[in-house]
C-alpha cells in the first residue's frame, strides 16, 4: 500500500484550508458577485452583445486566477513551519493546491452565471454566453494554459513581485523569439531567397506551427512539474 498518497489526507488538507480561509473566500466571493452585478445592472451589458460578456468573463477569470496565485504564494512562502510540518506528502500538498485552483475556477463560473441568470430573469431577451462562445482561436487555449502555468510557477517561486516577474519573463521570451524571427526573414531577404510555398523554409515554418499546440502543452506540464519540485525544495528551510 502506498502510504505516501492518500485521498483522505487531501480532503483533510482541503478542509484545513477551508477552516483557515473561509472568511476570506466568502468575502471575496461576495465582492466578486457584487462587482459583477454592478457591471450588469449599472453599466448594462448590451443585450445582444455576447462579445462584451466574453470580455468581462475573461477579465474576471484573470482576476480570480491572480487571487488564487496570491493564495498559493502566501501558503508556500509565509506559513512555512506550519504548512511544511503537516503530515502529508509533497505530492498531496501540491495536488491540493491544484484542486483548490479548480474549485476557484468552478466557483467563479457559478458566480458569473448566477449574475447572468439574474440578468436573464429581468431582461428575457438578453443572451447568455456559453463556454463555446468564449472559445479561443488557433490554439490559444494552449497558449493560455502556458501563460497560467508560467504565472503559477512564478508565484510558487518568488515571494514578491511574482506577477511582474512572470510577465517580464514572457516579454523577454517573446522579444527574443521575435528578434530571431526577424533575423531569419532578414537573412532570407539578404540572400534573395523567396519564402515560397513548398520551399524548405516554408515547410519548416508550417511544421513548426503544427507543433505549437503540443509544445505549449508540453511546456505547461513541465512548468507544473517544476512547481511540484519547487514545493519540495521549499520544504527545506
Amino acid at each position, binding site marked *: 500500500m502506498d502510504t505516501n498518497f492518500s485521498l483522505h489526507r487531501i480532503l483533510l488538507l482541503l478542509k*484545513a484550508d477551508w*477552516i483557515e480561509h473561509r472568511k476570506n473566500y466568502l468575502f471575496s466571493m461576495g465582492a466578486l458577485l457584487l462587482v459583477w452585478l454592478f457591471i450588469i445592472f449599472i453599466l448594462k451589458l448590451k443585450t445582444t452583445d455576447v462579445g462584451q460578456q466574453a470580455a468581462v468573463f475573461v477579465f474576471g477569470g484573470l482576476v480570480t486566477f491572480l487571487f488564487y496565485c496570491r493564495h498559493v504564494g502566501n501558503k508556500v512562502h509565509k506559513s512555512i513551519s506550519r504548512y511544511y*510540518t503537516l*503530515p502529508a506528502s509533497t505530492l498531496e500538498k501540491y495536488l491540493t493546491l491544484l484542486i483548490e485552483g479548480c474549485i476557484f475556477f468552478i466557483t467563479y463560473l457559478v458566480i458569473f452565471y448566477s449574475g447572468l441568470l439574474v440578468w436573464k430573469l429581468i431582461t428575457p431577451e438578453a443572451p447568455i454566453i456559453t463556454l463555446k462562445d468564449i472559445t479561443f482561436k488557433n490554439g490559444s487555449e494552449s497558449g493560455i494554459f502556458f501563460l497560467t502555468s508560467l504565472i503559477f510557477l512564478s508565484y510558487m517561486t518568488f515571494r514578491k513581485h511574482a506577477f511582474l516577474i512572470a510577465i517580464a519573463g514572457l516579454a523577454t521570451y517573446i522579444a527574443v523569439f521575435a528578434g530571431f524571427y526577424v533575423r531569419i526573414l532578414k537573412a532570407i531577404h539578404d540572400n534573395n531567397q523567396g519564402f515560397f510555398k513548398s520551399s524548405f523554409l516554408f515547410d519548416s515554418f508550417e511544421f513548426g506551427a503544427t507543433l505549437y499546440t503540443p509544445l505549449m502543452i508540453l511546456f505547461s506540464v513541465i512548468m507544473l512539474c517544476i512547481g511540484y519540485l519547487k514545493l519540495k525544495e521549499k520544504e527545506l528551510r
Partner: protein
Amino acid sequence: MIQLTNVSFGYRRQKPVLQEINLEIKPGNIYGLLGKNGEGKTTLLNIMSGLLFPDKGECLVFNEMPEKRKAHFLQNIFLLPEEINLPDVTGQEYIKMFAPFYPTFSNEIFEACKESFDIDLTAPLRKMSLGQKKKAAIMLALSANTPLLLMDEPTNGLDIPSKSIFRKLLASHISEEQTVIISTHQVRDLESLIDSVIILDRKEILFNKPLDEISRKLDFRKVETEEASFYSEPSPSGTVGVVVNDTAEKSIVSLELLFNAATSSASRSKIKDIINH
C-alpha cells in the same frame, strides 16, 4: 529510535553549525537538549524532523531518512517550533484543522490540557497573548500524542504557573513508548522532568547521558573555597560547585550547575571525560 552518525551541517560553507555529530536517542525517554544561544539546538531538531538535510553524515529516525518527509513518517513526529505561526482562526478551529492529521491524537489529553491551561478556545488566536498562543500550540503538540515529540524552547513566553502546568502535563501524559526531546537554554524549566541530558556546545555533542548516571559520577553541592571542584560559582547560600561523586549514593543533579560547568572553558574537558567514561 534516532541515530545520527557523523552529521555535519552549516548554513554557510566554511561555517559549520554542527560538526561530526554522533548521537543516539533511545525510545521512552524525555531528553533535555541544552546549549547556549546559537549552538545549533534548533538546527539539530530541524534535521531530525527532516526540515534540513545534513551536509555530511546520516540521520535516521525510526530507521528512515527524515528528509524524505514521507507522510507516515510525519504522522509519527510533532515539531513544536520556537516561533509559532498560528493561523487566523479560533483555538477550537485550530485543533479541528490539525488534529485529524495525527492518527494518535488523544481527546483525553486534549481535555486535560484544556482544563489545566484554562484558555478560552473560542477566542481568535490572533487576539491571544504570546503565552496563550504558546499554550494552544502546546495543547496540540501534547494531544497529537506522536511517538516522537520535538519541542524547541516550549516554555518561552509562558508565565511561571504555566511552566509548572506544562511540566505536570508532560510528565503525566507522556507514555513509556514516547520519546520527547526538549531543547532549551532555560535549564531550570526542565528540572524534575527529564530523564537524560544532551549538551550541545561548540558544534559538538558534549555528552548524552541519563541523569541517573550523571548523579552517580558527579556531585552538586556547596563547596568550600579550598576544596577541589571542577567548577564553582557564588550563590546566595554560599559557593556551590561540581565535584566528583565519590560516595555510593546518587546526588541530586543541578542542571544549571551541570550546564555551566560543562560549557565553561576551564571545566569543560574534565566534565566531558568523567561523564563519558
